[in-house]
Structure formats: C-alpha cells, structure tokens
C-alpha cells in the first residue's frame, strides 16, 4: 500500500510543474524569456538607466557616431539614440501586450459564445470573423488609423480588432471539442449552470493554444506597430518609437547608417525573444511531446 503511494508521487505534480519542467529543458526558450524580461525591466526603469532625456535636443551634438558616452550615437537633433531606443520599448511593449490582451479577451468571449451556443449565433459571429479576416491585418489597421487618426490608442485598437478572429476561432474550436466530452455532459446533467461549465471545464482546456497564439501575437503586433509608425501612420515623432526612429533615420542612411541599425536591432531582438518563448511554450504545453 505504502509503496504504491510512493510510485504515484510524480503524477501528483501540478499542471504548472509539469509545464515548467518541460519548458526549463529548452535553453533557447529560457533565453527568450530572460531577454524579454530584461527588455520589460529596461522599459519600466528607463529613467534610471540612462542619464539623457529621450526628447532633449542638443543641436551642437547632432550626428555623433557611437562612442563611450553615446553608445548608439546621436540623431539629427543631437538626441541620444540609446536613450530613445530604451524609451521606445515602452511604446512597443504597450501596443504589443495591450493589443493582444484586448484581442484575446474579446476573441475568447466571442469564441465561447459561438462554440457553446452554436446555431444562428455561431453562424452570425463566424461570418463577421470571416469578414474581418478577409482584410489583411496590416491594411485593416491602416484603414482604422486613417479614419480615427494616428496615435498609440488607435493603433492599439486597430491591431487588436484585426486579431480578434484568431482567438475567437481557436476558442470556438476547443469549446466544440470539449463540449462533446462526457465530463461536460455530466456536469450539465447534474444541473451545473452554463457559466460554471464554461469557466470550470471549458476555459482551462482551451488555455494552451490561446497562450501560444498570444505570445506569437505580441510579436506580430509589435512588428505591425513598428511598420505603421515607419509609414508615418503610427506613433508620431518626437515620441521615441522604434518604427518612427527608423523612418527618420532612413533619410540619413548613406552618411549615418548607425541611426537605422540600432532601433531595427532592438525590434529584432524583441521579436526573436518572443518567437523563442512562443516555440518553447508550444512544445512545453503540447502533451504529445511530454515525458
């Protein structure tokens, strides 16, 4: 009796422990997580990291190549590019995580309703999702920003709206598959309310694909936001943002290529970290790859 209990011990690990054990094995994913956390910390504590102000002009010190006091050099107004890159992380992270959070909440609710109730509600909601998906998300974002004006809030809303169908579809698919399971049927037979069935049984089972999609979604949102700002349709100067920094820097690319290189490298490192993290999460959450 006692021996059997001991053998069962490993199975008693919580879902999270299993996940964490799998995730930790993937060194690249852990590296991605660490880099991402560093970027987030840098964005939060930007004021303490650099002695310069991101929007402080110093025309006498314009176009200084990278050196000991200006690690990434200075731009056309003599602003320290390292400082601007650090502060720029704020905009990108807010849009990246904000847009995904918004899209995820709305998408999941719509997907739940659609999958759980089915029928006409489902057909109607899914047609709307089809319509949104028919417009490439970059163009959809451009159309929204063209109509509402270009600033951080509108950019965030634009990207979020274009991504709602992704989450709605994942959620709907997993609700439909879980709905057939016996434990859900039995819960309903026992008289558990609809809301509790959804929150207690269906949501936890849809968690993994949503999380993976969200991580990659943050990467996508940051790239789209940077692209929009690069086109002049996103965050406007003088607010430092990686895309609009590159947009200005491209005018000086022949003489001062470092102005273009650093903000772009910041985007790439962030996206790479998110992609590594996303891959790691996908593998760690996939039960087929466990043990």
């Amino acid at each position, binding site marked *: 009796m006692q021996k059997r209990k001991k053998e069962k011990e490993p199975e008693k690990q919580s879902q999270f422990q299993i996940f964490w054990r799998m995730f930790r094995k993937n060194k690249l994913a852990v590296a991605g997580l660490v880099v991402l956390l560093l970027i987030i910390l840098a964005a939060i504590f930007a004021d303490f990291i650099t002695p310069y102000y991101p929007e402080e002009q110093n025309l006498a010190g314009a176009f200084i190549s990278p050196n000991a006091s200006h690690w990434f050099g200075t731009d056309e107004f003599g602003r320290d590019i390292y400082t601007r890159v650090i502060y720029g992380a704020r905009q990108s992270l807010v849009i990246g995580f904000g847009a995904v959070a918004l899209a995820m909440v709305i998408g999941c609710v719509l997907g739940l309703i659609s999958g759980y109730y089915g029928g006409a509600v489902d057909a109607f909601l899914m*047609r*709307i999702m*089809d*319509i*949104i998906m*028919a*417009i*490439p*998300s*970059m*163009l*959809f974002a*451009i*159309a*929204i*920003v*063209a*109509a*509402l*004006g270009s600033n951080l809030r509108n950019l965030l809303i634009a990207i979020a709206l274009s991504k709602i169908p992704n989450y709605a579809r994942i959620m709907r698919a997993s609700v439909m598959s879980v709905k057939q399971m016996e434990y859900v049927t039995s819960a309903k037979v026992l008289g558990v309310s609809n809301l509790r069935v959804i929150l207690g049984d269906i949501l936890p089972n849809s968690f993994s694909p949503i999380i993976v999609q969200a991580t990659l979604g943050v*990467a996508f949102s940051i*790239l789209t936001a*940077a*692209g929009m700002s*690069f*086109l*002049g*349709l996103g965050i406007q100067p003088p607010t430092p943002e990686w*895309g609009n920094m*590159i947009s200005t820097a*491209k005018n000086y*690319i*022949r003489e001062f*290529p470092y102005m*273009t*290189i650093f903000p*772009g490298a910041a*985007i*790439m490192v962030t*996206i*790479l970290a998110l*992609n*590594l993290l996303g*891959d790691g999460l996908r593998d760690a959450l996939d039960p087929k790859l466990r043990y």
Partner: protein
Amino acid sequence: MLRYSIKRLLQLIPVALGVSLIVFTLLHISPGDPVKLMMGENVSQEVLERTREAMGLNDPFVVQYLNYIKDVFLHFDLGESYATKQPVIEEILKCFPSTLKLTLVSMAVATVGGILLGVLSAVNQNKGIDSVINVLALLGISFPSFWLGLLLILLFSVQLGWLPSSGLEGWKGMILPCTVLSLQSIASLTRMTRSSMLDVIRQDYVRTAKAKGLSAAAVIFFHEIKNALIPIITTIGMDFGSLLGGAVLCETIFSIQGIGRLMVDSIKRRDYPVVQGCVIFIALACCLVNLAVDLLYMVIDPKLKKTKTEG
C-alpha cells in the same frame, strides 16, 4: 466539384458586402468634411452646400452606403479621387500591376524556397543542416522587413553599387524588393513544411514504402511531400494576405508606384475615396485567392472532395 465551387463563390458575396460596410463606415466617421477636402478651403458656403447636395452627402447613411455598393458592384465604380479627380478604379488599375508583379514573384520565391528548405531540413532532422535552417528560419520570422530592406539597400546599392535602390525594373530591380517581401513567408513556410513533413515521415505507410525498397527520393516525392501539402497550402494562402500588407512597406522603401504606396499617399492627402477603394479591392483579391486555395485542396485531397461535395 462545380456545385461546390459555385456555392463558395456565392458565399463571397456577404463577405464582400461586409468588408465594404466596415470600410465605408470607418471612413464615413473619419473627421474632416469631404467637400472641403475636395474643393479646398476658399469656397463660399453656398457652393459647398450645393456640392454636398449634388454628391448625395446629405442623404442618410444607409442611402449613401447603398448607393456606394450599387456603384461598386454593378458598375465597378469606386468613386472619384479628391486629389486627381480621376475615377478611383483607374488609379488603382494603374498601380495594381506593380503590386501584383511584386506579390506574385515573392509568393513564388517563398513557395519554392520555403518548401525546399523545409524538406531539406526535415529529411536531415537533427543534423547540422537542419539546425542551420532552423536558426535561419527563426531569424527570418523575427526580421522587421522594412529594416531588412534598408540594410540591403545600404549594402547592395550604396556600398557595393550592384543593385538599384528603387523601382521594380528588370530582374536586377526585382531582387531586393522580392527578397524583402518574401523573407517572412519563406521563413514561416520553411517551419511549416518541416513540421508537416516530420508528421508524415513518422506515418506507417512511409515506413512501408521504405521497406519495400523505394529510393529515398521517391519516398520523399511520392509519399511525404504530397501528404504534407495540405497545411503547406493553407499557409501559402494565408500568406498572400500578409504579402499584400507587407507590399505597402516594401513599395514605400523601394519607391515602387504600387497600390500600397497609393493608399499611404492617399491617407496623407486625406483622399478617402482612394483609401476606401484600395482596401476593398485588396480584400476582394484576398477572398478570391483563398477561394482558389480552397478549391485546390479538393484537387489534392480526394477525401475532402467527397465530404465537401456531399455535404
């Protein structure tokens, strides 16, 4: 097959109407008086009012929308540009060939490159070449395309002087824009192909084919690629939309007079009919491509053909 195709074509109609409604509403609520934008600020109140009436801008929203879609779908008339006074459809058709050329070539490059690299990577799983391709693909999906474009111009046009930094003329002019536009698709398609191939490679019938003595190449081409194609084609179809979106950035960087550039310029000029026309035009193009992809599934997978035509 024919019946299913027609059914799918008919399903496009509500989507097209929905897209036009969303875009029309968005630009309807945008700030700014279209008449003032069109005629400039120095026009008398009376003239403004008369033009507004003549253009139907005093009609209720629903009437305006119905008139708009009637023009769009019955006469292919997308309205008139505020800036050039030309019909929007003409402006779009003038720019569309460049965008189409850029997108189709990039899509072809991405398809060939992505599938080749993915297969190469999958059949050499866990060997050196697999790791190299994996790293490259990961970098590929992480590179901001507009940044890559600028770096390539810096290297190949400014430093080395080998390739032109703008335009889309000749094969030399195509190299940089198509590389920039296709990079993300190549990378994502490589990853998709690799994982899809790995799924197939583990299947029993592949083992059987190997056991009965088919050469490695024959197994790869007749059994593995064919069966790994469905998710690959889905990715290609979905990538077409993002390629068209990416074309906006690409056209801006390389100064190509395409539809994306037209749209961005029109937003800056507040030339809303052109913006509206471009978005609707591209969305419809994407719908048609997705329809084509859907029909392609049935050619590839007879199982699907049966269920879909019956259901």
